[in-house]
Structures are given as structure tokens and as C-alpha cells.
């Protein structure tokens, strides 16, 4: 377990006794159970575990997409569940990037419009958006597909664009829920390499869930969940 202190400036995410339960008929399902976790800036962390272990719920809780049944989530010292819905949306817009498993991109917008979309929501002017989009397209190696619609891209390309879109707002960290789940080996490899490159060169913090061994092998920290509880938290030097 991490021994980082609260006032450690490198900590960007901290959870306190974070629990989330769902009621299914008469039975209560504990998706996450009293999770205490910290994520420091620049980490490349994978949350792993079998299906139903609470990986997605944990990521949703950290991203403020789900309200916890109990416990707290702090992002850069802000208790995100104390924020009103509008404030939370705004907080996410400026601090958290998301990459989902499915339907990440807005189908009617081109690749560059998709990347620029979040910046537009942030109120960035056109010049800023164009410059940042070009920079990100360069980073993910898809400059030549700037004007393409998502429907013309492969699964791997779509996920790379989703990563670029998540980065566009210059967030504190990126949450990615099973980003390689629907990708073939080569596409998954390329996406992972892109993420690693961004992590190493741009110091982008990634927290992602996976049950793909190839992804696990690349992670520098593995948090294992079982029945909603952290059973292992290991760090690796790759």
C-alpha cells in the first residue's frame, strides 16, 4: 500500500474508505468495499481483476460519474462528491480525461473536431484548438487522418483519437476503462505504446482498468481488485 502523505503534492487522487453498493432485488452487491487508494502524478496504473470485481465502478467513482455509497474521493484535494452536478461536470472537464471501451467519439465530427470538442467546451479559442489538436495528432501518429470521420477509422485508431481527445483539455490524469477490450493484438499494442509514450514523455498520469495480460505487463503499478476490495497493490520498474 502507498504510504504517501496527504500533503504530498504529487498525489492527485486519494480515496477514503470508498464503497459503492447496488441493490439487486433483495440482495446488496458491494461493487467496491472501503477502498483506500492514492494515485500520484505520472503514474501508469492498471486496475485489474476478474469480471465483476469492481474495476469500472472504482474508475467511475474516481471520475465522479458515480456517487459513492460511503467514503470520499479527493482529486487534487477537492472532495468531488461535495461538488454540485454543474460544478462536477466543469471539474471533470478541466481535470479528468476519459477513454471508454465503446463509443468514445462523436460520430458526426471529424477526428480533429472530436479532439477539439473538449477544448471548445472549455472555451478555448480557435487558434489554440487548432494548435493543440495538431500537436496531439502528431503525438498519436494520426496527422494524416485529421479530417476523417470516426466511422472510417479502425478500432485502434478510434481509441488513440479518444486518448488524444482526453488529453486535449490538459487534465490531471486520464481514466481509461478497458481501453483495449475491443482491439486486436496489434491495435492494442499500438494504443498501449502511445499511452506509455505519453506517460513517459509528457508525464501524463493514466489510471486504467483491464483484464488483458498484455496491458498488465506494461503497467508500472498493478492494483488488484477482488469482490470490490484491493487485494494487491504492486509497483514495477519496466
Amino acid at each position, binding site marked *: 500500500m502507498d504510504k504517501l502523505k496527504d500533503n504530498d503534492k504529487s498525489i492527485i487522487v486519494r480515496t477514503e474508505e470508498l464503497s*459503492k*453498493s*447496488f*441493490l*439487486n*432485488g433483495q440482495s*446488496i*452487491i458491494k461493487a467496491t468495499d472501503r477502498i483506500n487508494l492514492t494515485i500520484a502524478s505520472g503514474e501508469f496504473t492498471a486496475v485489474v481483476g476478474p469480471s465483476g470485481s469492481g474495476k*469500472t*465502478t472504482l474508475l*467511475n467513482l474516481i*471520475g465522479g*460519474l*458515480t*456517487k459513492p*455509497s460511503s467514503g470520499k474521493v479527493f482529486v487534487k484535494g477537492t472532495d468531488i462528491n461535495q461538488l454540485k*452536478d*454543474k460544478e462536477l*461536470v*466543469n471539474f*471533470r*472537464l*478541466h481535470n479528468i*480525461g*476519459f477513454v*471508454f471501451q*465503446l*463509443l*468514445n467519439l*462523436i*460520430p*458526426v*465530427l471529424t477526428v480533429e473536431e472530436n479532439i477539439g*470538442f*473538449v477544448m471548445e*467546451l*472549455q472555451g478555448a479559442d480557435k487558434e489554440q484548438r487548432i494548435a493543440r489538436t495538431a500537436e496531439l495528432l502528431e503525438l498519436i501518429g494520426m496527422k494524416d487522418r485529421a479530417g476523417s470521420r470516426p466511422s472510417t477509422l479502425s478500432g485502434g485508431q478510434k481509441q488513440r483519437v479518444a486518448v488524444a*481527445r*482526453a488529453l486535449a*483539455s490538459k487534465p490531471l490524469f486520464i481514466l481509461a*476503462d478497458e481501453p483495449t477490450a475491443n482491439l486486436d493484438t496489434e491495435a492494442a499494442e499500438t494504443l498501449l505504446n502511445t499511452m506509455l509514450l505519453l506517460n513517459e514523455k509528457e508525464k501524463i498520469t493514466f489510471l486504467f482498468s483491464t483484464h488483458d495480460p498484455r496491458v498488465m505487463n506494461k503497467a508500472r503499478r498493478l492494483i488488484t481488485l477482488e469482490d470490490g476490495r484491493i487485494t494487491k497493490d504492486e509497483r514495477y520498474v519496466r
Partner: protein
Amino acid sequence: MMKLAWLNLQRNPSRALLTILSVFIAAFFSIIFGSVKNGILNSSTESILKLSGGDIEIRSKSYSTSRFIDDIMQIDSAMLDSISRLQYVKRVLPVLQSYLLISHSSSTSTKAVSIIGIDPESEKDRILTVTEMVEGHWFSKYDKGVIVGENMREELGLKVGDTLAVMGMGYHGAGAVGLIPIQGVARIPVAAVDKNTMFMTLSAAQELFQAEDCYSEIYIISERLDKVDLIKSQIKKIFPSDEYEIRDWKSLIEDFLFYFRLADAFGFIIMLFLYILVGSNILGTIILTSKERKLEFSVLISVGMSRNKLSKSLFYELMIVALLGVILAVIVTLPIVYFFTIHPIPLFGEDIATLKQFSIYSGIYMSLDFTLFIKQFLIVIGMCLAFAAYPISFIQHLKVDEGLSKRDANEDNL
């Protein structure tokens, strides 16, 4: 947001077309039905007005109750001209109506009849629209003869060219006595009138009754029925209300109006059902498409799009679709309504044939009234505006995590 809304509509053309079609159907049927309803009411009103005097009637209050010739109005031509000059007045038709006893050599009995003195030029079109000359000819300005009804001719055995001996009371104690030739026979659609009424020129009637510049009634035909109240208020300034009775077509055909209102109310109920039917169709499409896009909305909210912005975008989508549907319906219905305004859908049958003979309402008319188009346009747009509450509320209450996950929808958050 507008661009995104527009692009979203293009993304799924079949979905957009489905919604546009729902709105189109709503607007199409509401315009057509509303137009038929108004068309029938208008044509019925016009038919009845053809048989009545005019849109506005002026008579002296005393004559209105007594129907006595001494109580008729004496009005100079300047006063009549002042009415003609009023805005929206199409025609002023002064009339002198009274009663006479008539006798003819072929009959042993004397008959009491109503005689109506009319301006032959001004009244020609109006009367001949509902009355058909079966023998003889219509009046020229200085004719002194009478036109009798077909039934009266049968009853008294009259012929064109015969002379009637007439006797009655003239104005202010004068006698109305004379020999008057029959110059024509007409088929008048109302049997009682056909049997008991004769027409003559206004000047001949004034001469017979020795009532120069006197009129029992003044009928006013307006350019537009909706301006009758305005004309009436202007006339009231010329004719003092304590001496004259000024009635408009609504009060003249009050009984009919009751049935019209009843028909209007039924029409409203049918329209309401129509709105409910097509409204539920639109709402159903909106609900379906909102639910279909749950994942998409959840992703957009997750990445930082505020619920308000997303609602706004969806609202624009709906409004674009609604406007396209309604505008399309207006474009399609306009020529249809125009065509059936000129060419009413014919009705058949014996009774209809009789009505047709007198150019009285005899088919299903439509009304090319632009206010109807605007009204239906606004109603359907209003409906869509109200229905926009659903997707807006859907977005405002959307649980993003549920939208993103494949988790069982029956599971409740704790």
C-alpha cells in the same frame, strides 16, 4: 451547438426522417382538417347570408316592432353615401318593404302579399345568385312592373304581361293603389317567400307608397365578415342608437350560429383527438430516440459537456426536425387547400341538387385562411416545444454511470 444538432440529424437520416414524418403527419392533418372545418362553416354562413339581407341591417326601432309603413326611415342620399364611404363596406342596399292586397282577373280571391322594392342594379347579382328567373326578365332601372314567385304564379294563375290590381296603405296616410304589370316570374328558394312575395324596383315602390327617400331597411354588404363589427361601430356614429336598430349577421342568423358553434365544438373535439393521436406519435418517437442515445449522452456528459448544453443541442435537434416537418406540411397542404377552396369536393343526392340549383353550400369546401396555417404551425411547434421537455428531463436525470455501463438496469444505487 446548432452545428452539432444539425450534424446529428444527418448522422441518422432514417431517425430524423421518422421524426420529421411524425411532425409532418401532425401538421398535415391538422391543417387539412382545420381548413375543411372552417371551409364548411364559412360556406354555410355565406349560404345563409345569401338568403338573408346582408351582413348588417339598419331599420328604425319602431318599424322593427310594428312593421308599419309609417315607421320606416326617411334618409337622404347624403346619409346613404356616408355609409358607402365607410371602410370595408362593399355595397349599401336600401330596401322598401311593405304589404299590399293584390287581385287578378283570373282569380276571385284577393291575396295579401309582401312587396319588396329593391335597387335592380345593385341587387341583381345578389338576388339572382339564389333566385332563378324562370320567365320574363330582370328589372332595368325605371321598370314599373313586378317579379312574382313561381308558387304565387301557380296559385293565382298569373302570366307575364298580366296586370295586377294592388291596394294598400302608403306612407303617412297616403294610399298605395295601382295597376302593375307582371314582368317576370322567379324561382325563389324559400317556399314561403316564393308564394307570398313580389319584387319591384325601389323607385317604383317609393312611388307606389308615396314614400320618397324612405326605406324600411338598409342592408350593408361588407368586404370582409371579420370587419363587420368595425363597420357596425362606425354606423352607430351615423345612426343614433335610440332611433335605429343596427343588427349584424351574427344576430340575424343566431339560430344557425348556435349549430355552427356546436359543429365548431365537435370539430374542436375531433381536432383534439387528432392532436393526441399525432402528438403521441411524435412523443413516442422522441422517447425512443432519447433512450437509444443514452450511451452517447453519457459519454458526452462524462467528457465535460454540461447537461444544459447537451439539452440545448437536443432541443435544437428537435426544433429543426419540428420546423422541417411543419414547413413541409405547409408546402404540401397549401396547394391542396387552394385547389379544394376553388373546387369543393362535391356531394351528391336529391337535396344537394336543390341546394346546388341556388348556389347554396353543396360540397365540402376548404378555407384558404393563412391564419389557420399560422395557427396550426404554432400548435404543432408548441406541441414539439412541450415534448422537448422529455429529452431535456431525460438528460437532466440521466445517471451517467448507468448509461455507460452494461450493468443491469434493475439494480438501484445505494
